[in-house]
């Protein structure tokens, strides 16, 4: 990430003369006078922002919408001062072949030095033509852009897991990025959530720029800093869970007192995300605080894991004001069994240990 644009171009065998010509053409293409060319050349010789190609497959654009809601840093500052968002079809000025030309330019000129951010996923049925970009299957664009990328960011649950279009029966065979056949093997960071929290998205980017390395990932490829704890672990309503105080129906006495939403379907105990710690819109709230059970939107296949208002499991003898450790422990054990990919035993142990510290 430290190479300058000029160095990259020279390494590609481009002469200084061609480089200066490129700078004049850039100035001319913008309708600016020749005086701008040396300034552009100077900037390119001294520093650069890392180019980012932000591709969109089958998706709903909720990740981009979330991203622009980032309070710290502001989306404006990320785009103007931190990265060079060279391709993002949701906000870019260019369209058609002028837009597509940018991908080619970045892939060729910045080999191994650009980030590929993916929102959504490619459908594989019908030769990929359930999602067409420039007359061709999106999956082709994705594979081409991945070829020379430094790393890939899978934004949101679509890119990370498949999300809603991949819910049963997945009619288009929508496929998460890391499972796309023939995709170049690159470091891949999953930032799941439907959408991910804005400040988590911008933090993942700023972490990479600040420390010049990828964040530490868990076994499923998610940054540990935001996805190593369940929402339940740090939920402000956790004491009510431990005390056996539950919302029995929406808008009942318990709902008005902020009791635990477990019995009306909360998936907080099985969901790894930062909602109860970082919270949303600059730390303002999160679903449970606003009275709705967590629907588990950052988990793989959350659409197919039972209804959003169905209790995770019916635990017999879940009496009011029962022993807090017993309730917490029982629930965590059931949860652990469900989250197969995780080291269930240690998660439960950690949850128990942390339970004491956090209350």
């Amino acid at each position, binding site marked *: 990430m430290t190479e300058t644009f000029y160095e990259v171009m020279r390494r590609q065998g481009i002469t200084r003369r061609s480089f200066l010509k490129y700078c004049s053409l850039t100035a001319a293409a913008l309708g600016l006078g020749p005086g701008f060319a040396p300034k552009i050349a100077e900037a390119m010789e001294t520093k650069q922002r890392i180019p980012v190609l932000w591709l*969109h497959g089958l998706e*709903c654009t909720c990740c981009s919408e979330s991203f*622009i809601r980032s309070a710290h840093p502001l989306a404006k500052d990320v785009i103007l001062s931190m990265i060079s968002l060279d391709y993002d079809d949701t906000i870019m000025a260019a369209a058609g072949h002028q837009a597509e030309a940018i991908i080619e330019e970045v892939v060729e000129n910045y080999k191994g030095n650009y980030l590929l951010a993916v929102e959504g996923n490619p459908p594989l049925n019908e030769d990929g033509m359930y999602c067409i970009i420039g007359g*061709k299957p999106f999956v082709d664009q994705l594979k081409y852009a991945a070829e020379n990328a430094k790393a890939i960011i899978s934004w949101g649950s679509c890119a990370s897991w498949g999300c809603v279009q991949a819910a049963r029966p997945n*009619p288009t065979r929508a496929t998460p990025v890391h499972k796309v056949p023939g995709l170049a093997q690159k470091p891949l960071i999953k930032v799941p959530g439907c959408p991910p*929290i804005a400040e988590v998205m911008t933090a993942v980017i700023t972490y990479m720029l600040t420390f010049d390395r990828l964040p530490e990932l868990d076994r499923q490829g998610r940054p540990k800093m935001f996805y190593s704890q369940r929402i339940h672990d740090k939920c402000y309503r956790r004491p009510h869970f431990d005390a056996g105080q539950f919302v029995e129906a*929406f808008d009942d006495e318990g709902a*008005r007192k902020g009791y635990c939403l477990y019995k009306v379907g909360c998936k907080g105990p099985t969901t790894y995300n930062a909602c109860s710690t970082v919270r949303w819109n600059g730390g303002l709230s999160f679903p449970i605080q*606003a009275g709705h059970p967590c629907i588990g939107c950052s988990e793989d296949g959350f659409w197919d894991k039972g209804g959003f208002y169905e209790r995770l499991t019916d635990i017999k003898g879940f009496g009011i004001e029962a022993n807090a450790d017993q309730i917490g422990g029982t629930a965590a054990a059931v949860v652990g069994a469900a989250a197969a990919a995780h080291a269930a035993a240690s998660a439960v142990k950690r949850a128990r240990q942390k339970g004491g510290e956090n209350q």
Partner: protein
Amino acid sequence: MSILQTPNGFNLDTSGKRVVVDPVTRIEGHMRCEVNVDEDNYIRNAVSTGTMWRGLEVILKGRDPRDAWAFTQRICGVCTGTHALTSVRAVEDALGIEIPENANSIRNIMQLSLQIHDHLVHFYHLHALDWVNPINALKADPKATSELQQAVAPKHAKSSPGYFRDIQNRLKKFVESGQLGPFKNGYWTNPAYLLPPEADLMAVTHYLEALDFQKEIMITRTIFGGKDTHPNWMVGGVPCAINIDGEMAAGAPINMERLNLVSSIINRTLEFIENVYIPDIIAIGKFYKGWLYGGGLASQSVLAYGDIPDRANDYSPENLMMPVGAIINGNLKEVHEVDLRDPEQIQEFVPHSWYSYPDEAKGLHPWDGITEPRYELGPNLVGSKTNILQIDEQAKYSWIKAPRWRGHAMEVGPLARYIIGYAQGHEEFTDQIERTLSALDVPLNALFSTLGRTAARALEAQWAAHKQRYFMDKLIATIKNGDSSTANVAQFDPKTWPTEVKGVGFTEAPRGALAHWIKIKDTKIENYQCVVPTTWNGSPRDNEGNIGAFEASLMNTKVERAEEPVEILRTIHSFDPCLACSTHVMGPDGKELAEVKVR
């Protein structure tokens, strides 16, 4: 080549040069546009293609109707929430569930905040670069921009020459870096850009101000819905219980502190719309009022379902604050009633869509809709199945179906709503329209244009900002009267439901009329159908050859440079297309789908 006249009055001539724009950027989702341009650079044929399909309704089949809002909300993350609201209304309609007055007020505040947010972000971040040249802003004298700003919006605090100089310097540094990011490969030398540098600098500055401010607007939805994008909703009311002064109010979803926060956001939002968005539209409009292309269907056929019920549970036109009705053949004197349950009114056609019907000469009402994908390209295609160079619009050519109202292709959206409100003589809308026409010094006809569409969206954001205040006051008044209820859970348990029911829910999404049709059998979804705004606006040709609203709007527009599609983008963007919405549509006949051939 001969000229083909469409039943809705457009002459299509494919003899000129074919221009392809794919992808059309700065929209939600994926879309392609092809036009034929004659030797004088006028567009004489237009073809719009939806280029994505996800099949959400087949995914919904067999699921819990109470969960449908969350699935359908993921149809679109830009108009986030409007599908969810439509969905809970459809389920409530089917089951006869009435919601509390507070739930209605809170839902309306959330829906209005979406209108405002969506319109603002659309104008500044998806649409402005069709009118505003950020590179030209570098040539501005910040003092001139300051004078312009103070003239158009005297109350806006950020107006000093120093402020604009700082922004200009930041922009200059950005451009000089040679890394232009989102502005890269734009059409910055195209003569279609008409603003003087000082206006460009003002608009670019507001692009940045609006980017900062838009996240504040959605705070109301984070308070009521827990997060945004994609806040939470529920059948029977809203999930955010109210506790003003009881025990543990501080940990309740809605308490005094939360209400104060929402209230302050509502005030600041209104301020921003009135001091930035509206003045910018007038200022920019003055330079473009000679460019009145893009009317298309607006002057003939427009449709709205209405929204924002004043009192809870009454969806009659008299109780809806947004206009309801259909205008056809340009006759503003007659506004027709619209009935979503009438099988003769709304029908969808597929002869030019990548779906098959048993009899494609006929349309189907959403209750009886079938959707079986059939991706096939016509004999005149240039290219191949996976490399489309030029599409054949004589055959199937889009993932969007063609909905029609009594056989008419219709335009929906803010302009359609405002035309209907105007035709009905609804003062709130006629006042706004007349004030704008007089500020721009243009006749009523000017409304039927790309510029009119863009202006109507701004007026609606202003209208919505006022209505947010109305419902906030109403919410407080109801609580003051001792009613804090937010949900009716009497029928929340599926065991209480009849065996077989059906319902319709509708809203006015930011982009236009939206409805969901649901059939529930044995407590599960048997059939789910959505007809969404961009299905109306972006529709391909129908069985009779009528072209859709996007296509109609491009007809006979002059382009300055055929290879730089500024004018095409400007007009298509004026509809605020949402392709993920329009192309998800999926019928009840899900079984075939599950067996779609895997290559």
